[in-house]
């Protein structure tokens, strides 16, 4: 009996009853939006599980998830490389490289993404193929047929829309990521480069071993956010008839006239992917900040 009372007393010490203000504070700070988000998922899941029309829409549209993720991942990889190179170019001492980098970034930033996708797919890629053909001719004149032949064999009509879509997304996001990398590099104090150069390292050694490791860690959250944005913007490639989830949902809706089913399912699928990714980015951000405090 006495023991039980002690336990009860302890329990009371550990969590005293909340006062009115404390309770109000807790209610104010509780992330109710998560409840709303979960509610949306539960509702959609319920619809998919109980209604045949939703079930059909879901199983049809689901097939596009692979294309969406694949397109995003590949384009993101290329955008990272393009962004890093352009970011380095933007801070280069070489006037030509610096201006080419800046021109690229400013061009992309000033044009709507949808327009860019059309432009790159229907103007940029044909022009690129034409250029490669020319280079092929030039090589064949030099007698270097093993280089010339694959280049000459390229045909604009043979470039699939998926490839065009990936090129368009990479080129567009490369410009955004260039700005992220540039800001990240410039956020590292001048003293770091000076210390490295004073030790006899070359500019590129200092970049690689001293500046970039710090800069990239600092911009990881921003790069993660860009990945989420890219996943969403990949829906724009549906205008090129690439069969990503948006395109498939559009097709399904047009064929079955079940617009509500198609677009509720589509929105839920995107949201599912972005919520998971955003949570990962938030976790990353916390890690980076923690490291900063400890390191």
């Amino acid at each position, binding site marked *: 009996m006495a023991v039980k009372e002690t336990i009860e007393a302890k329990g009371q010490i550990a969590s005293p009853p909340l006062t009115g203000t404390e309770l109000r504070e807790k209610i104010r700070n509780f992330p109710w939006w998560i409840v709303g988000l979960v509610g949306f998922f539960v509702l959609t899941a319920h619809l998919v599980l109980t209604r045949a029309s939703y079930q059909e829409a879901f199983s049809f549209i689901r097939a596009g998830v692979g294309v969406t993720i694949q397109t995003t991942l590949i384009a993101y990889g290329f955008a990272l490389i393009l962004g890093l190179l352009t970011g380095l170019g933007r801070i280069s001492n070489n006037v030509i490289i610096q201006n080419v980098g800046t021109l690229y970034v400013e061009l992309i930033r000033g044009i709507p993404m949808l327009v860019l996708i059309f432009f790159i797919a229907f103007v940029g890629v044909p022009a690129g193929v034409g250029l490669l053909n020319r280079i092929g001719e030039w090589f064949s004149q030099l007698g270097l047929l093993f280089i010339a032949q694959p280049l000459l064999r390229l045909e604009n009509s043979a470039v699939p829309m998926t490839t065009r879509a990936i090129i368009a997304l990479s080129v567009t996001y490369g410009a955004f990521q260039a700005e992220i990398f540039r800001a990240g590099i410039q956020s590292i104090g001048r003293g770091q480069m000076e210390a490295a150069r004073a030790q006899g*390292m070359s500019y590129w050694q200092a970049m690689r071993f001293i500046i970039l490791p710090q800069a990239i860690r600092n911009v990881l959250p921003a790069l993660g956010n860009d990945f989420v944005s890219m996943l969403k913007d990949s829906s724009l490639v549906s205008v090129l008839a690439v069969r990503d989830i948006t395109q498939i949902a559009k097709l399904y809706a047009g064929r079955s006239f079940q617009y509500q089913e198609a677009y509720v399912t589509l929105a839920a699928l995107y949201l599912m992917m972005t919520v998971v990714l955003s949570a990962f980015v938030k976790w990353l951000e916390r890690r980076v900040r923690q490291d900063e405090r400890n390191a």
Partner: protein
Amino acid sequence: MSATHEMIRVINLRKKFGRLVAVDGVNLTVRKGQVIVIIGPSGSGKSTLLRCINHLEVPTEGEIWIEQQKITGSQRQLNAIRSQIGMVFQHFNLYPHLTVLENVTLAQRIVRKLSKSQAEAIAMHHLERVGIADKARSYPAQLSGGQQQRVAIARALAQDPKIMLFDEPTSALDPEMIKEVLDVMLALANEGITMVVVTHEMGFARAAADEVIFMDRGKIVERAIPEVFFNQPAHERSRAFLSQILSH
């Protein structure tokens, strides 16, 4: 004094930042084993002079010679020369993403191409020398300012430099940490390392300097051994400066 013992020769150095003339026609020679302390009011060009010596600042005019070699625009040669000059900065400039040990080994490995074990052995030797070997696995941010600066000194020493440059090494430190850094520097001075030190620590200048250089407005005003400089400064501006900093 044979010319072979001449480590640094600065000839008619001028450095302009825009319209501001930071260093205005400085000539200076430093011989092997000498400890030169440069003092002067802030903005007198003493840090700029020091930074020109290893080409962290590109001189507007004039020449810098390190051991009979002219520091030119050639990057490759410059990197090789720099690797023989240790530099210690006011704000330490340790690499925060690397451990203390990695801070000291990195340049040895990629500039001098030493193996990991060789570089670590050298690093531990110098970390012991500055009394901080027990922190080898820590990160810079886990150390106090004085400890960080001692690591920075060990990092510079690990290059096996012919010359050590110190750019106000104690100016960013809390007062109780200044002594531990000055003690290390004093020990180095007594070991015969060629040192050029920009500092406000007059006690160190008295104790360690072979010569004191007083700079004002980009020019060397006076150059003398410490006893003479501190007791009978020859110039009006040196006297004014000394009376200002020694009046408390």
